[in-house]
């Protein structure tokens, strides 16, 4: 019965709604990626402070269900000093050009083994870790 209801609801989702959620989720993921590595704004609360908003509002923006709007995306981009969305052309201009001029300076390979899995998120259980570098530093080749 429940699966029938679910199937029916799923059929009622229009392509536009599906695309809308997909894009919104992607934007939320990108913002979370940036927050994870940003030197100063590294949480939703810090982002809310930077924008003069309530944390609950930022949470709503990043939920994947809220229409964030280009204006708010731009505000986040300015606060974070990073682009959140790029068109194909912008992405190519930014990343393809540098990718042609790279010089490899190090290739490192490592092998390891985790003998016992951790029961995440409790971090309990025994772990025996072997961590062995197997090869290092091949320098000077171009890429």
């Amino acid at each position, binding site marked *: 019965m429940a699966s029938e209801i679910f199937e029916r609801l799923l059929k009622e989702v229009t392509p536009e709604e599906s695309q809308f959620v997909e894009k919104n989720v992607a934007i939320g993921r990108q913002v979370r990626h940036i927050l994870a590595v940003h030197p100063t704004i590294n949480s939703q609360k810090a982002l809310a402070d930077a924008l003069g908003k309530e944390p609950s509002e930022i949470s709503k923006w990043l939920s994947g269900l809220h229409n964030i709007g280009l204006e708010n995306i731009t505000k986040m981009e300015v606060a974070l000093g990073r682009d959140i969305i790029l068109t194909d052309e912008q992405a190519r201009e930014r*990343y393809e050009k540098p990718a042609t*001029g790279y010089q490899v300076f*190090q290739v490192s390979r*490592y092998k390891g083994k985790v003998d016992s899995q951790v029961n995440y998120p409790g971090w309990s259980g025994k772990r025996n870790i072997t*961590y062995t570098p197997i090869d290092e530093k091949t320098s000077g080749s171009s890429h």
Partner: protein
Amino acid sequence: MAKKKFDIGKLDYLNIRDIAFTYSMPDEPSLPEKEGNPTGYSMEIVKMFNMDQEIIRLVFTIQLETMLETAKEIKGVYTTEHLFQVKGLSEWVTKAEEKFVVDPDLNEMLTIQAYSTARGMIHQKFNGTWFSDFVLPVAKSGALD
């Protein structure tokens, strides 16, 4: 003369993105009890720079595989790209005997930042797979030189 120390303020984590992800598991594998299964991993970190753009690019690939004879065919490979902007990069790169050498302090910072980020990304990416419990170990200082 004292050695010049790299200032982390000159390092900017520009972008991270997925490059490739594959996961394979046979339709009817002979699976043992999951608890305590050993997982083997192989990692490769390729580091390169673009001097004109002052960008350092790390391509981080990890392959996971079960270490149980009965489940050897379960494998996963995940590659991520990490781009860093380094202000004044040329000051930190030297060339000796046709080989480029990046300042060890800077090199270690790049590796630690990419590795730490990749740990979380790997855990998230393999969620729902045989390797969903796998957590890449915390690297000891100097272990990734």
